[in-house]
Every structure is written in structure tokens, then in C-alpha cells.
């Protein structure tokens, strides 16, 4: 029986759960894999080792080429740039992203605080990570009922031309403890409680929803091989009735926790030949890594485990009834970064460096810089920057650190300096020092209007809607005479014209009066600043690794990694929330009880 791979068109990319590897390790330990090695991998393929090796390399190279291409042969570990290419409908290139690139976090399918027009206005939003779990409160999940070639895009309001969706099951920035996964299901959280999601269910969701990239996580190593085997086998069975030929690219969450040996072992097994009984179905993959296009690291559980190990567990107390999240308390440090780099290197040592590396939940630019420098990463999520918007923080930093950080901005004050001489990474706009501050949000970036008028060639402006607001390109007309208003000479705005930036004093006012538009403005701004940060990383990497390392050191010297500002903002933010009656313990306890039924329900 021949299993032919469909043409290489990226439509779906799947993250393998680490359950697979556990099975492999078990099989290996019991000698089953030894037997497997002597058996031809696929009956149609001559089994000489060199042939297998060639096929492996070819298929790996072919798949890597279609998804991620490093700019130059990357070192095993070190800063690297590259291009992520998304194709649909044949070989047509839909979208190219220069890496390291931004992965935007979502909540319940939406970018927090951003209406559709604001999502589209914020052009740095391109790759979007979509936890699917909020949709499993209904059976079948509603997104699977949507018609058309791009159901998830359509349902959630993203543009299939400009947005690349990565579908996961769980939210990588959600640090809540979950009931254990089973052998053929994963537990996930939705408003109606904890639900079980089986392999076949997940496959069905993925098939129906057609995101660009799919990822699924499991937390533990002791899971069944069924997940990964089924996922890799699917193309042959499923594509017969779909208009689009799809190829499954697998992204793997690297397991092993904070145990370097476990992480290394996990990676070793990826490069071991597949089990005999699955060989046919998994052909032409000879090793599991053959079927894998990228590697995912979730930093949240690693950091939490490291903190416990070093006896400085992260404070999970008084989460203000759910307002504060566990992840808000995470901090990075030189020490944790070097431990994390070491753990990532254990995972990636034996694996091909030309495959995509995804980093979830970094909690500071310092952490990002060190992992880019010491490991090399390609896609990073901006949950930290987005979450800062919830807490009233406007980010204000650049990489590389500008030479004129201190001097140039006489009217627009840079962030506060702490006692230790380090600058904050932004502004806690709850602070009373902003009551009379009528300047733009970030001193590091001119606003659009100023940059437009200015003849001095300075830093590029922040293009977000808070710093470079534009009059709408059109207004809805409600009657035939509305034109009298909009086209009258007295009309103060003209379509698309740049307007003065939103001020710190205004956002301060909005925060204290609990106005939601504060968070929309800050969300757009912060994700734009974070994207500019990644722009700076790419530009600096291009100047060579020594230069990059120097700039990382400079950044560490200048900016505060302890995020004292965040702790201050959290306090003030909670004060405002509590004044509105939120976060009261009793009410929140009640809500939590309602949202976890107590018994998991099968889908």
C-alpha cells in the first residue's frame, strides 16, 4: 500500500503533544524499537539506510523550505533571522514574515480590547495565537459550524489575506492548575467548566476550522502515542473530500519540564525511527522529527517550576478574585534566563536548527533578548505587552537603546529612573504624575503628526492608533443630507488626516474613571512597541552576533528587569477595580465554583 504525501501546501500545522514521546521512551526501554529498526519502514520503499537517510533529509528539507527559511545557515544556538512563508492554494505565497516575529495573544478568540477595526488598524498584528478551549462549551463547538474556506478567520473577524492563525487547545499564558489529562484526551477549560477533548474531536475541530497553524498542548509526558500518530496519519484519510490539499506540519511542544536529562531524552527520541506498527501510516516519515516543522517552548510552567526549585515560589496569593493572573507575578532574571537557555538547549541540541522555534510567554524584553542571543528563537508571543495594557501601563522602550535616550525628549518625559539607576520600561499611567502630562504616550517614539511635520529625520514614529490617530477614511451616512455636514467647509476633519496623539493625561483620566477605551488604546500601543522591539532585534542581529551581544548588555544596563513599575501599577489598578465593586472575594469565589463543574464532561 502506498501512502503518498499531498503537495506541500501549508494549511495546517500541528503541535504534537509530548505524550507521543513517552510512548516511544517506553517502547525503547522494552526493546520494541530495536526490533522495529530491522523492519522495512514502508513496503514500497527499499530499506537501505542511505536511502532512508536521503528521503528523510529531502522530506525535511522540503518541508522546512516551505515554512521557515533561516537567512543564513544558523548556528545551533545563537541569534538568527529568517523568513516564515505561508502558502495557500498551491504554491502561491500568501504571506512572508521576517523573524524573529510577533505572535499576538487572544482571549476567547479575540485580541483583548480590540474591535475588528482596531485589529485591522494595528498592522503589526499578523500572526495570531488562538486557544480553542473557550469554544468547547458547546457540542459541536460553534466555529466548526462556519462555512467557507477560512472558517476561523471568518468567524473571528480576521483577514485571511493578512492574518495567520495558530490554533492551540489551551492558552499558554494561563497558569491555572488543571485536572490531569487522560490517555486519549486532554482537559481544557471553558466557561462551563472543564471538558475533555479527545484526539478525534480535536482532529475534527482542526479540520473544520482550517487555521493556518494548529497546535495542541499536553502538560505531561505520560500520554498516549495515539495523539501524534493520529495527527500525522490524518492527511491520507481526511483530504479526499476537501477542495484544498493539505499537508500537515507538526509543531512540537518540547517536554521534559526543568529536568535537562528528560528534555534531552525527549529530543533524542524524536530522531529515533518510528515504531513498526505505525510505520505504514506514518510513511514517509522515518522518524517523528521528519514530521515536525517547528518546536514550541512554553516558558510559564518552566519558570514556575524553576521558582519552586529555587525555593522562591511565585506568589500566587490574593489574585484579587481572578483579576490578577498567576502569570502577572512572573519575573525574569539573569539566573532564570540562563537556566531556561540551558533547558532549551537540551531540547534543541540534537534537533535541526533550521526548524522554526516558537517562544510562549516571555515576561520581559530582557528574557527575550537573552533567549534570542543564547538559543535563537523565531516567533514570540506578546502576551506580556498586551497584559500590561490591562494594568494601565504604556510601554516606552527601544532596542537597541538609543544614544539620545536621556537628552532628546525635553517635552515628552522618558520613563522614570529607579534608585538603582535603571529606567522603567514604560509608564504606569495610573500614577498621579501624569495628571498634567499632556504629551504622547511614549518618549521613545514620536507621534505620527509630529514626525510628519518635522523636518528632522529622527526615530520612526509609533504608528499605533493612540500615537498616530487618523480621522476615519469614511463615515457612515445616514441620510441624503448628511453630506451637508461632512463636506461643509466648517467640518474640522478630513478623511485619513493625522491627528494629535492621545495624551498621558487623557489615558490617566480614562483609567481612573474605569473607561474601557484606555485599554484599547494601550493594547494597540503596547503591541506596536513590542513589534518595534522585534524590528530592532532583527536589525541588530543583521549586524552580527557580537554587536547583538553588546546591545543586549547595554539594554540590561539601562532598563529595569524587576518590573517594579508592574507591581506598582497592579496595586493602583486593583484599587480602581475594587472601587467599582470588582474582585470581591466572595463574589469571585462564587464565580469560580460556577465555572468548574467538578466532574469533567466528555465531548
Amino acid at each position: 500500500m502506498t501512502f503518498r504525501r499531498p503537495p506541500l501546501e501549508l494549511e495546517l500545522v500541528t503541535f504534537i503533544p509530548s505524550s507521543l514521546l513517552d510512548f516511544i521512551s517506553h517502547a525503547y526501554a522494552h526493546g520494541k524499537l530495536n526490533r522495529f529498526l530491522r523492519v522495512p519502514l514502508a513496503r514500497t520503499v527499499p530499506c537501505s539506510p542511505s536511502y532512508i537517510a536521503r528521503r528523510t533529509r529531502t522530506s525535511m528539507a522540503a518541508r522546512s523550505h516551505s515554512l521557515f527559511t533561516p537567512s543564513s545557515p544558523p548556528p545551533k544556538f545563537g541569534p538568527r533571522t529568517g523568513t516564515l512563508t505561508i502558502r495557500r492554494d498551491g504554491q502561491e505565497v500568501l504571506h512572508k514574515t521576517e523573524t524573529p516575529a510577533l505572535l499576538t495573544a487572544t482571549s476567547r478568540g479575540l485580541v483583548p480590547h480590540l474591535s475588528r477595526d482596531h485589529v485591522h488598524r494595528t498592522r503589526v498584528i499578523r500572526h495570531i495565537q488562538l486557544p480553542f478551549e473557550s469554544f468547547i462549551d458547546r457540542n459541536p463547538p460553534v466555529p466548526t459550524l462556519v462555512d467557507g474556506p477560512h472558517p476561523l478567520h471568518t468567524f473571528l473577524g480576521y483577514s485571511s489575506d493578512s492574518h495567520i492563525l495558530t490554533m492551540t487547545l489551551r492558552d499558554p499564558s494561563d497558569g491555572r492548575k488543571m485536572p490531569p489529562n487522560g490517555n486519549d484526551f486532554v482537559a481544557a477549560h471553558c466557561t462551563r467548566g472543564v471538558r475533555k477533548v479527545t484526539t478525534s474531536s480535536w482532529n475534527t475541530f482542526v479540520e473544520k476550522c482550517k487555521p493556518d497553524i494548529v497546535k495542541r498542548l499536553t502538560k505531561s509526558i505520560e500520554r498516549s502515542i495515539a495523539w501524534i500518530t493520529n495527527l500525522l496519519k490524518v492527511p491520507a484519510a481526511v483530504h479526499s473530500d476537501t477542495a484544498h490539499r493539505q499537508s500537515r506540519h507538526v509543531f512540537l511542544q518540547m517536554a521534559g519540564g526543568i529536568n535537562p536529562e528528560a528534555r534531552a531524552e525527549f529530543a533524542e527520541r524524536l530522531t529515533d525511527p518510528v515504531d513498526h506498527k505505525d510505520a505504514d501510516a506514518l510513511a514517509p516519515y522515518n522518524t517523528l522529527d521528519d514530521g515536525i516543522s517547528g518546536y514550541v517552548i512554553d516558558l510559564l510552567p518552566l519558570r514556575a517550576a524553576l521558582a519552586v526549585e529555587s525555593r522562591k515560589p511565585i506568589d500566587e496569593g490574593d489574585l484579587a478574585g481572578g483579576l490578577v493572573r498567576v502569570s502577572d507575578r512572573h519575573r525574569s532574571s539573569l539566573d532564570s534566563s540562563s537556566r531556561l537557555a540551558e533547558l532549551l538547549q537540551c531540547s534543541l541540541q540534537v534537533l535541526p536548527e533550521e526548524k522554526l522555534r516558537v517562544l510562549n510567554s516571555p515576561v520581559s524584553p530582557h528574557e527575550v533578548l537573552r533567549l534570542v542571543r543564547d538559543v535563537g528563537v523565531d516567533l514570540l508571543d506578546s502576551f506580556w505587552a498586551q497584559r500590561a495594557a490591562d494594568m494601565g501601563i504604556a510601554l516606552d522602550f527601544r532596542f537597541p537603546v538609543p544614544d539620545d535616550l536621556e537628552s532628546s525628549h525635553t517635552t515628552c518625559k522618558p520613563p522614570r529612573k529607579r534608585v538603582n539607576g535603571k529606567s522603567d520600561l514604560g509608564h504606569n499611567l495610573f500614577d498621579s504624575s501624569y495628571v498634567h502630562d499632556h504629551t504622547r504616550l511614549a518618549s521613545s517614539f514620536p507621534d505620527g503628526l509630529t514626525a510628519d511635520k518635522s523636518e528632522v529625520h529622527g526615530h520612526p514614529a509609533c504608528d499605533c492608533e493612540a500615537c498616530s490617530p487618523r480621522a476615519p477614511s469614511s463615515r457612515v451616512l445616514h441620510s441624503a443630507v448628511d453630506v451637508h455636514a461632512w463636506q461643509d467647509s466648517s467640518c474640522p476633519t478630513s478623511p485619513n488626516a493625522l491627528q494629535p496623539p492621545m495624551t498621558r493625561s487623557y489615558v490617566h483620566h480614562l483609567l481612573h474613571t474605569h473607561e474601557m477605551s484606555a485599554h484599547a488604546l494601550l493594547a494597540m500601543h503596547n503591541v506596536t512597541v513590542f513589534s518595534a522591539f522585534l524590528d530592532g532585534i532583527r536589525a541588530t542581529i543583521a549586524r552580527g552576533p557580537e554587536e547583538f551581544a553588546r546591545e543586549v548588555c547595554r539594554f540590561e544596563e539601562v532598563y529595569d528587569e524587576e518590573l517594579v513599575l508592574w507591581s506598582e501599577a497592579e496595586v493602583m489598578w486593583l484599587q480602581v477595580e475594587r472601587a467599582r465593586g470588582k474582585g470581591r472575594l466572595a463574589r469571585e469565589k462564587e464565580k469560580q465554583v460556577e465555572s468548574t463543574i467538578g466532574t469533567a464532561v466528555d465531548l
Partner: protein
Amino acid sequence: MQFEVLAKCHTTRARVSKMRLAHGVTMLPTFMPVATQAAIKGLTPQQVEALGVNLILNNTYHLNLRPGIQVLKEAGGAHKFQGWNHNLLTDSGGFQLVSLSKFTKITEEGALFASPFDGKPTMLTPEESISIQHAIGADIVMQLDDVVSSLTVGPRVEEAMWRTIRWLDRCIEFHQKSGRDDVQNLFAIVQGGLDPELRDKCLDEMIARRDRVAGYAIGGLSGGEEKDIFWRVIKQCADKLPEDRPRYSMGIGFAEDLLVCVALGVDMADCVFPTRTARFGVALTPTGPLNLRLSKHAADMRPIEEGCPCPTCASGTARAILHHNATLETATAHAITQHNLVFQARIMGGARDAIINGTFPDYLKNFFANYFGDAGYPEWCVNALRSVGVDLLEGRSDVKVISGDGAKWEYSDAA
């Protein structure tokens, strides 16, 4: 202000007019969204403008507390502070004083209230109210009126009516002395409770001051009075008020209320209702409100309203995703808010077109038939429109008529 009536309905008292203020032209009749604290909740000013809105309301009471006059002056006024470039109306703060302050005592001098910050007794005089509104810089400013609940009876109502007239004079004098009366336009507020005689006296007095007043609001009517009395007061005022002045019914926002007021000769209204109900997951449509929290919307892939030009419907946002996230994600509050503001604007825009085209009576009939359908028409609407020559029941013997307020709501089954 330049105010020009462009068209009149041949049957009702409705009219279309063009009002030019310092921040541009607003076509009337129109609905004014409420930006209580210098923001339409959840939206940026650019988003509001994109919806086709060019006149919004700020609350003087709130802005005086936060951010305060000092900050507003530094910023160059409320327009610049909030980034709103078009027309702005401020109320006087009187209503909030009475409704929000723990302690308010009205004296001839002004309203003595407890400051929400430190509880200290603070006085708001007519002059002070106008002064604050000057600093805010609104294009239309309202006199400070002596507000009594519409349910109050007895001599207090008459006392408040006369005092309101005296306070109007003080507002006029202060406003004119400031030299700002060419850029900022002062409106009077007709009071007198639900008593036609008191209303009549108030109207006479205020109309006598027409040359020093840019427009007239009909106040004292958003406090739970019976709708069948409410429209009669509106009608009485609108019948008498000068045609060459805009008429503003304060605190009106339900679709049927707006259209009845327009038919009676009102040009502007404001209300928090459409934006507030949006945040609770209720979308307003020509066939009635949709409570998107109900599970029946969970898998409905249709937009809120087919053909609606708002950003939410025009981008094909399904009811299902709004259901999924209503009251859970702020982005969904924004989406429904955008829709509801466009709904309000479309009702008024459709009225403008119909008045100009001479089809306003049909517009009213069609609207009511679609909006209330089989639920039945509120009797007070039937009465009110009949008084201006429109018989909602004409050709519709099947339709029920409901006494009372007849509000049409779907109750949530997902608490």
C-alpha cells in the same frame, strides 16, 4: 449658531434642519450619544466619527470632578482633551447633582451638594455652571436648572419652574459678559413638571428671552413619569417653542420615544440607553432588541442586522461570536456599541430622509410595524402620533394596542 429649517413634514410637526456650530454642521433631527466622562464608553473619538456621528454630549458634573477644570484648561478644552473634533454639548450638572450626590440642597443661590471626594459642602451656582462649561468648551451649553423629579407634586414644582427662569437670566448674563456667546451657544430648559399651566407659564417666559437663547431643551421628563403624560408635555412645549430654534428633549433614547418626539417637533435627544444596553449584550434592531446572551443566538451565523452599515455588521460579525463573548470580552462590548450607535443614527437619518421626501407618516408606520410586530403598539405612541395626524392603526386592524410603556425585551436565560 446658524440654524436653518430645510424641510417640514406636511402632516406631523417634524422638520429637518441644519445647525452650524463652531465645530461644524449637524443635521437635525439627530440622536446624541453620551460621552459622560469624555469618552463614548469603549470607543475612540475616531471610531465614533466613523459611525457618522458629529454631535455628542459630555457631563459637566463628571468632568468637573475628573479630570477637573484645571486639566481641561491646560489641555485646551474638552475637545482637545478627548480628541473629539466635532460638536459637543454639555449639560449643566444639575441633573447629576440631584441624582448622584448624597446630599443636595437647593437654595436661591445655587445647589449645595456634598462633594463626592471629601464630602464637603460645595455650591454650584448658575454662574459657576456656565463657567465650568466655558472651560470645557462645548459648542452648546445648558443653563443650570432647578430639577425636580417628574413625579413630584405640590408647590415645589412651581417653585422650581420660577427659579429655573431666574437662573436662566443669571446664566444668560454671565454667558454674555464672558464674551463667549458667539462661540458657545446657551440653551434654556423648560420646566414645570407635568402641569400644563406651569409649563405654559415657563414657555411664555423663556420664549420672551429668545433673542438671548440659542435653543430650548424640554427638561424634567426622564424620571419615570407615565408615557402618556410625557408625550403631552413634549407636544405642548414643541407646539409653542419658536420654530427657528432647535428643540432638545433630554434623556430620551428608546427608538419609539425618539420618533414620537421627532413627530412632535423635537430636533435633538440624548440618552445612555443604547450604549449601556450594548455593554449588557443587547443589540438594537429595526425588529426590536436582540438579547445576544440568550442561547438561541449561540450558533446563529447571521449578523445582528443584514445590511446594517456599522463596522460590526458590515464585516459580517456573527451573532454567535457576539453571544460567545458578550459581557466577557470588552471587544464585544465595543462591537455592539458601534452597532447600537449606528442603529440610533439610522433611525434619525431615515426620519430626515422621509421628512424631506414627504413620506414621514409612512416611515413611522413601517417602523412601528417592524419594531413591535405582533407584540403590539404602546398605546401612548398611538395617541401621540394621532395627535399629529398619523394613525398607526390605519389599515392594521389586527394589531394589538398595549397600555403602559410596552417595552419589548427578551429576558436572558444565561445569567
